[in-house]
């Protein structure tokens, strides 16, 4: 019960100061609750509002930063894992529509619940808090021709928030998808000066798959030291597409952005190392390709800081059909250990079976609905547990040598519409799988429903 002791002692003081009032209700106003009387006026969060409309329904949304939500609600909601989202839904159709809370956030907080997390013991302002949270919440039902606005209490996300506002109307569901960069946190990609990364004439555009394959296969196996020497982590995938489409696919699948290394993020990582707490945007060490640190780091934390999947991306001076091409390096952290090799005295132990993390990423991105075309190429010297590669942290890793290649499109793609590069395929059955894929591609080109010829097992 946060605030219990602070308030109790404050009230006790009041009692001693004014003992004649002992019989009156206990210390009215012993803690003042002062939320913003008119949120939109007091805090200019609406300037960041994004609006989408479709078939007579329009949705505007803003995710509040931790600072803004404290200003508006008068209590620290982020501490309790709550992130209010302001929504305005307009309905110009002639039937009511419903905001589906559970599809928008399966673990949303009800207004009374969000208020309760900030209660202090036997405090009369609790009631006021309840009223305020209810009054400013958005209701489920938007009447025909009506406009509704208010806050929806979601689970807290750091950095970039994926918001899928799910509306049911006219017997069909509509999803309005937003991505918000939440103010108040520095992110590693913000320190990159994208315009000066490469000169305009440095980019080489490729139009054919064969050219692309050659270029990607020629990319060195591994990251290097800052001066370009040595072999560090494996460069085991490529993502191609509009950068917005790529990042939004990752965010949709629950990947988090990363804070740059700084004193405060380092301290938080250090604390999280000892407490085992979850730190979803914890900083990543620099790994070098093209003699520069990763442009973007992404991570997906499990329950503690020790376990997460993380990946780094570097923009290549290459375009494929006009799209950006990124080199990636993905690995799975299986735990942490104490070390003097990093400034925050802890490092992550990676899963040495590097292909396991690649396989995870493949599944994750294929389910994101953002990948149009997928394939594998070679380019890393295969290694085994008995004869592994080693990175600069002296951790061993091994791989079958394949790299995954993802092409992202603008429109959602379901798994059965997915297209493949008929190059090579990873895994023991790779040779057989690629035959199926070739047969399928041939079938699709002829406009036949793809039904590859069965191969008889030996």
């Amino acid at each position, binding site marked *: *019960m946060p605030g219990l002791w602070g308030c109790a002692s404050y009230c006790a003081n009041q009692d001693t100061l004014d003992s004649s009032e002992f019989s009156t209700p206990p210390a009215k106003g012993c803690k003042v609750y002062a939320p913003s009387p008119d949120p939109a006026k007091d805090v200019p969060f609406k300037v960041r509002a994004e609006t989408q409309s479709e078939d007579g329904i329009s949705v505007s949304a803003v995710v509040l930063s931790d600072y803004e939500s404290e200003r508006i609600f008068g209590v620290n909601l982020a501490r*309790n*894992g709550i992130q209010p989202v302001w929504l305005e839904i307009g309905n110009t159709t002639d*039937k009511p529509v*419903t905001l*589906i*809370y*559970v*599809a928008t*956030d*399966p*673990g949303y907080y*009800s207004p*009374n*619940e969000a208020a*309760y*997390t900030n*209660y202090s013991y036997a405090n009369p302002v609790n009631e006021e808090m309840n009223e305020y949270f*209810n009054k400013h919440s958005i*209701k*489920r*039902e938007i009447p025909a021709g009506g406009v509704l606005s208010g806050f929806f209490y979601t*689970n807290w996300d750091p950095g970039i928030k994926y918001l*899928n506002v*799910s*509306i*049911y109307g006219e*017997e069909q*569901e509509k*999803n309005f998808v937003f991505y918000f960069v939440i103010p108040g946190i520095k992110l590693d990609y913000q320190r990159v000066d994208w315009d000066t990364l490469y000169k305009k004439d440095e980019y080489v555009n490729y139009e054919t798959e064969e050219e692309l394959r050659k270029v990607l296969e020629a990319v060195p196996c591994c990251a290097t030291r800052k001066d370009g020497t040595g072999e560090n982590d494996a460069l085991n995938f490529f993502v191609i597409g509009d950068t917005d489409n790529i990042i939004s696919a990752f965010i949709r699948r629950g990947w988090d952005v990363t804070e740059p290394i700084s004193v405060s993020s380092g301290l938080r990582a250090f604390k999280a190392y000892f407490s085992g707490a979850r730190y979803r945007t914890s900083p990543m060490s620099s790994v070098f390709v093209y003699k520069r640190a990763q442009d973007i780091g992404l991570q997906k934390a499990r329950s503690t800081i020790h*376990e997460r999947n993380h990946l780094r991306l570097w923009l290549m001076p290459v375009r494929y059909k006009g799209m950006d091409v990124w080199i990636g390096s993905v690995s*799975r952290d*299986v*735990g942490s250990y104490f070390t003097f090799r990093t400034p925050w005295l802890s490092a992550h132990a990676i*899963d040495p*079976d590097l292909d396991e993390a690649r*396989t*995870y990423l493949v599944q*994750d991105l294929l*389910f*994101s609905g953002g990948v149009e075309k997928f394939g594998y190429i070679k380019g890393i010297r295969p290694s085994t547990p008995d004869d592994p590669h080693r990175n600069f942290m002296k951790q061993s890793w091994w791989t079958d040598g394949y790299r995954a290649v993802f092409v992202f499109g603008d429109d*959602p793609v*379901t*798994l*059965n519409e*997915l297209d*493949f590069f008929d190059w090579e395929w*990873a*895994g*023991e*059955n790779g040779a057989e*799988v690629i035959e*199926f*894929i070739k047969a*399928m591609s041939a079938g699709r080109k002829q406009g036949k429903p*793809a039904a590859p010829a*069965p*191969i*008889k*097992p030996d």
Partner: protein
Amino acid sequence: MRNKLLPIAIWIILAAAAGCGGSYSPNPPEEVSFLDRAETQSRNGITITVAVLSREESQEVFGVDLAANGVQPVWLDIENNTGKPYFFMPIALDPDYFSPNEVAFMNHLKFNRSANREMDEQFSKYGIQIEFVMPGERDKGFVYTNLDPGLKFVNVTLYEIDGTENFFFYFEVPGIQPDYENVDFPTLYTKDELVYIDDEAELRKALEALPCCTTGSDGGGGGEPINVVLIGDPDDISSAVVRRKWDVTEADTGKFKFDLGRAFSPEGYRTFPMASLYLFGRRQDVSLQKSRRETDAAYRQRNTLRLWLTPVRYKGKTVWAGAVSRDIGSDLRIRKYWFAAQEIDPDIDETRDYLVEDIILSQNVDKLGYVDGVGVSTSEDPRYNLSKLPWWSDGYRAVLLFGKDQITLGDLGYFDWEDVDAIYDGGTGGDGTGAADEGAQGK
């Protein structure tokens, strides 16, 4: 002096060798009996066998206590007798599944490298290969999933180049004793007491006639509203609630048992016992709960659903009266021993609407409707539960009819009863493509 120190030194060395060094002695899965509980489904030439290991079984197979680290191995046997290769995607089963080396790393011993290496090998060897299962081939092994106590939902998604096949299983995992195991369902009602109904109008009357609220053990006192009715085969209902990540509840033994490991693990509170409320003169038959797992809020915040089997059978299906409410406050760790009141969200219709949305998104609901029966109350003039906490309601109870087939939400049917204006009169929607619904994209 030297004589006295020597045995102590020897003892310390022995203790170090036994305690810290440790040893590692797993058993091959074939020798452990979990396969007796395996379930098999076959469709279009694919045969899937699944078993979920209990804590003891996983300890036997792997030689270490996996549950202590929140890991629950799921055994899979995939047989492909089709003409196409199928790719098994464990991410649809558990988006945060563990890799074999990760599970081994959690259990590594401090000073025993050879045992650690053996552990790595053991977990990798029994881990399932995540790749295409070729025609005529068979792939088996474990997926290391996050622990679900009590009931576990297993979704096996296989992808072939032109589409996906999903196989749904759910398992009762031994290890905890859910409260419904103490209920002898066949003897709850005699044959004469059962009421068979085939007609919607009659069903409506019967549901409206259910008591408004729960009571105390003596049949008196304030209670919480009976605000949901679930109709369906018990199997269909449980598979829907488990798919939506509701947990079963342990029977309250009434004994003072302080489990230190559990007091500091939110996971341990997912199946925490629930207070008894009474209807038809008896405690709830089944208690379900869904706690917030991301933060340590699992101690304080959960939704609870209590169910009682009624004597009504609608078209042969069982009818359950339910009371759903949202625990928003007091700490379970304190509540049990200090008799703190169970704080609920007083706007109890909000919780009912949440339940309706949540269960509908399981895609197991055929039909939705509302009936009267609770009685109207408002925030100015609320009613009170046993703990003297207020609640208010528009007086309606939601009725959910479960079916066998997957119902996409555009196809959801409605009972043409109360027109609960505002909420879901045109029905709700959603196809479960929320971020939390793995595999929905592939359908």
